[in-house]
């Protein structure tokens, strides 16, 4: 039997999930509550503040995934209410397809049900353990049940459940099961009470939802925070993202632990069959090639492969030429939408974005997208703001340890008109967005808060930033030039009349002669300077006048702004 140790160090499998899965199998001996207590830091419940964030995040991820799979433009209504000291109620309502009645208890009240782990598909779900963990946490901290309402269509009944989890058996405990009136075509609503803490700042739920709105421009989010401030993030596009395709693993990304696991799971009768059906890009010839190099017979039954043989197979794979994996399974947002997302939530004067062509690390296809918002309301004396995303999910923690941050630091920003001291985050009026879309996002740790440092990924991020940077530089330089030029113009405008006045005085000129002098001078000196104007490239959407209106829409009142400026 394989042991947990076999999987240590494999990024391919979500080892947290495996651990959880292994443990879940032993539920008769260990209570699930105990498991939860022991692993809460892995599950995103290490502290009260994070518990609030994780719960919102799980619910939002579920809702967005469900809407997108069903081809519905998502509209989320999120409300956090402070019920007492350290006690909050979270309500998340979506317009998704709804959940069939019999699935509701399992999805919300059975740990690891329908978990997406070990699926090689670009999805948000790779990130968490699922909403049921939040239900569990809610039950442990408040003893209150989760309240679920869901309907799948106009003529269908709306089901209302109150659910708990049987912590001994990891099964749903149905406390209430009713049909209710719900004025909703289709959708799901979850209500959870939990022990939590609410705080503003860069790692707050507020920020998480704002960034979610940026990277999901097809989504409308209406959010009311515990201070009863409402934020409306309206969608900027009616086009749903293309659904990514699931792929089989590429041999280059396989490590010994997962290979052994796959060999034991497979239904294939021979190694050849195993390779050609379980992997991308292996045909009969390549399979034969690998087996020969490893010194293993091609007809061997997968289950009978020893650990030592498996190691030889891995080595053989490394030295065999195999075509790169298909990349059409990764769906980027696209430069237009990245820009739209930035534009709708950031009041800057210049936006630029780019989407790199697909690339591959360790057999996993991925795409890097980057965007920069510059100037406008962004302040110039602070470090630039970094927005990190993995498969459309914002990463708010561990910025310093993240591969994205390092790639940003390694990019030479001074060339692009933004100041940067050695080996540090640049300083300037800019927000930099980096999004990694991949069938498998490599995180540094099980907490899934920072990207691991793969040279292929760093390279792509830098290339994307350089592409944006060059456009930014030309804008910044143009702006500088125009500013100088405008200054000179106004200088000219200021003093030309005085030449006219003086000559009029000295030579008793007529008004006509005076204005002739002024016009000639203006003409002459401007001619020498040439015309200046900023090309209308459509990026100057920033407007001082719009600022208060936009703030109002975003629920930012003056006092709040003042506070955040301090």
């Amino acid at each position: 039997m394989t042991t947990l140790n076999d999987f240590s160090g494999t990024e391919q499998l979500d080892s947290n999930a495996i651990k959880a899965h292994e443990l879940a199998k032993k539920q008769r001996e260990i209570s699930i509550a105990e498991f939860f207590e022991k692993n809460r830091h892995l599950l995103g419940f290490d502290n009260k503040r994070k518990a609030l964030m994780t719960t919102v995040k799980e619910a939002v991820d579920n809702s967005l995934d469900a809407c997108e799979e069903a081809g519905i433009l998502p509209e989320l209504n999120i409300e956090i209410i402070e019920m007492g000291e350290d006690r909050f109620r979270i309500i998340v309502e979506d317009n998704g397809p709804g959940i069939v009645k019999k699935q509701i208890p399992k999805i919300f009240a059975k740990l690891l049900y329908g978990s997406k782990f070990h699926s090689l598909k670009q999805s948000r779900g790779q990130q968490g353990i699922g909403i049921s963990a939040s239900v569990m946490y809610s039950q442990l901290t408040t003893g209150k049940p989760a309240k679920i309402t869901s309907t799948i269509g106009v003529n269908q009944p709306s089901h209302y459940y109150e659910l708990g989890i049987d912590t001994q058996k990891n099964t749903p405990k149905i406390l209430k099961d009713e049909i209710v009136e719900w004025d909703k075509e289709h959708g799901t609503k979850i209500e959870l009470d939990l022990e939590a803490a609410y705080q503003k700042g860069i790692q707050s739920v507020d920020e998480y939802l704002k960034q979610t709105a940026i990277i999901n421009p097809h989504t409308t989010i209406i959010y009311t925070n515990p201070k009863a401030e409402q934020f409306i993030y309206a969608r900027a596009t009616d086009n749903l993202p293309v659904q990514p395709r699931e792929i089989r693993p590429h041999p280059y990304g396989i490590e010994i632990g997962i290979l052994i696991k796959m060999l034991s799971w497979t239904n294939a009768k021979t190694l050849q069959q195993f390779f050609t059906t379980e992997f991308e890009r292996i045909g009969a010839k390549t399979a034969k090639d690998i087996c020969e190099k490893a010194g293993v017979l091609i007809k061997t039954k997968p289950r009978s492969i020893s650990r030592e043989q498996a190691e030889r197979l891995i080595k053989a794979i490394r030295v065999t030429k195999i075509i790169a994996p298909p990349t059409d399974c990764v769906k980027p947002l696209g430069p237009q939408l990245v820009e739209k997302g930035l534009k709708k939530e950031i009041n800057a004067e210049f936006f630029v974005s780019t989407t790199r062509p697909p690339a591959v690390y360790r057999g996993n296809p991925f795409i890097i997208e980057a965007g920069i918002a510059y100037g406008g309301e962004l302040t110039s004396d602070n470090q630039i703001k970094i927005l990190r995303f993995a498969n459309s999910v914002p990463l708010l923690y561990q910025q310093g340890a993240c591969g994205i941050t390092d790639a940003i630091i390694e990019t030479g920003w001074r060339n692009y008109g933004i100041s940067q001291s050695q080996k540090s985050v640049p300083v300037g009026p800019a927000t930099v967005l980096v999004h990694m879309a991949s069938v498998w996002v490599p995180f540094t740790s099980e907490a899934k808060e920072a990207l691991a440092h793969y040279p292929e990924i760093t390279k792509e991020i830098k290339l994307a930033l350089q592409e944006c940077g060059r456009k930014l530089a030309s804008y910044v330089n143009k702006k500088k030039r125009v500013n100088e030029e405008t200054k000179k113009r106004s200088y000219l405008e200021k003093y030309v009349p005085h030449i006219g006045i003086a000559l009029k005085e000295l030579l008793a000129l007529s008004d006509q002669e005076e204005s002739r002098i002024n016009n000639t001078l203006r003409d002459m000196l401007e001619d020498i300077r040439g015309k200046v104007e900023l090309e209308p490239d459509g990026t100057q959407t920033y407007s001082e006048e719009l600022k208060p209106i936009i703030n109002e829409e975003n629920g930012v009142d003056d006092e709040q702004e003042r506070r955040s400026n301090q």
Partner: protein
Amino acid sequence: MNKKEEVINKIKDQATDVYQTIIKRQKPELEMPIRALSNVTYDPKKGFFELNGAMKKRTLTVNTIKTFAQTLRLMGLSQQLVKTNDIATKREAYYISKNWGDASFSEQTESDAIMDDVESLFMLNRERIGFIPEEKGGDVAGRLTVIDKDPDSGQEIKIDCTKFGSGSYSVPSTVEELQFETKADFILAVETTGMYQRLVKHNYFKKSNCILISLGGVPTRSCRRFIRRLSDEKNLPVYAFTDGDPYGWLNIYRTLKVGSGNAAHINKYFCVPNTKFFGITAKDIIDYNLPTHPLKDVDIKRVQDGIKNDPFVLQHPEWQKALQDLVKMKKRAEQQALATHGLNFVISDYLPQKLENPKSWLP
């Protein structure tokens, strides 16, 4: 054509030139001599610092348009002043510019500099283009009658410079219209007010039949002009009596005698080439055993700079030697150091000995 019209025409010609250049869609230029020691020559026969040919051009561009406009506006003001027989002090001119909106001067140093430019542009002294300085011209006492006019009636006023008691007649800022009557034998120009006071108090001018003038540091233009006219018209020798230090020699005496670099365009009229230097000389310090002070570093630098670059010093070996002696001694002495031999030693001994002994003078 009288003097007034000449000035008005000069200004008008320059303005017309600018106007027509602009009409031709060309960039107008104002050309004026560079006013600095590096651009003057000294010919002892002529007796004053004369400009070399180096000129600077102020071309109208975006960068120079402010100064250009200010120059033209100051020319306009000057024309106005000359036409109406009025004058404005440098400070007043600065305040008048406050009406010019964007073209006004923010500091008087700016308007002074542009005024110097206009002056050299026309090679006319600023009094002739209507501007006068703030500073006092210098004090006068002795055997001299100045004939001035009453500002209202235009009637002649005779001012007897022997009749100011312990006070003095003040040289006005414009001296061109003054007339003189005198029977004095010479003019003694004194650097410090302290020494001048002593000479006045003890009626030195009566004893030696002279005119005493207090320079009060580097002599102003009008003071130089006053001495010059007096000396020229009445054929009087001029003797200078300053401290025995580089400042007294190179700044005060040299400016009095041959003019300055900055005023090179008008030196011809604003210096007194026939002035001779009485003292304090380096030799005096030794001969009279005067109490001294050590030379400061800036003094030594000033001397070395003078020996190397001052066209006046370069022409006079006597001065080169005097300066070198001073540096060797590393000492300087003030006029009033003579008091070490008694308060009136200067009157009873020093000055009479100097007058008798032209060999003790410096050129």
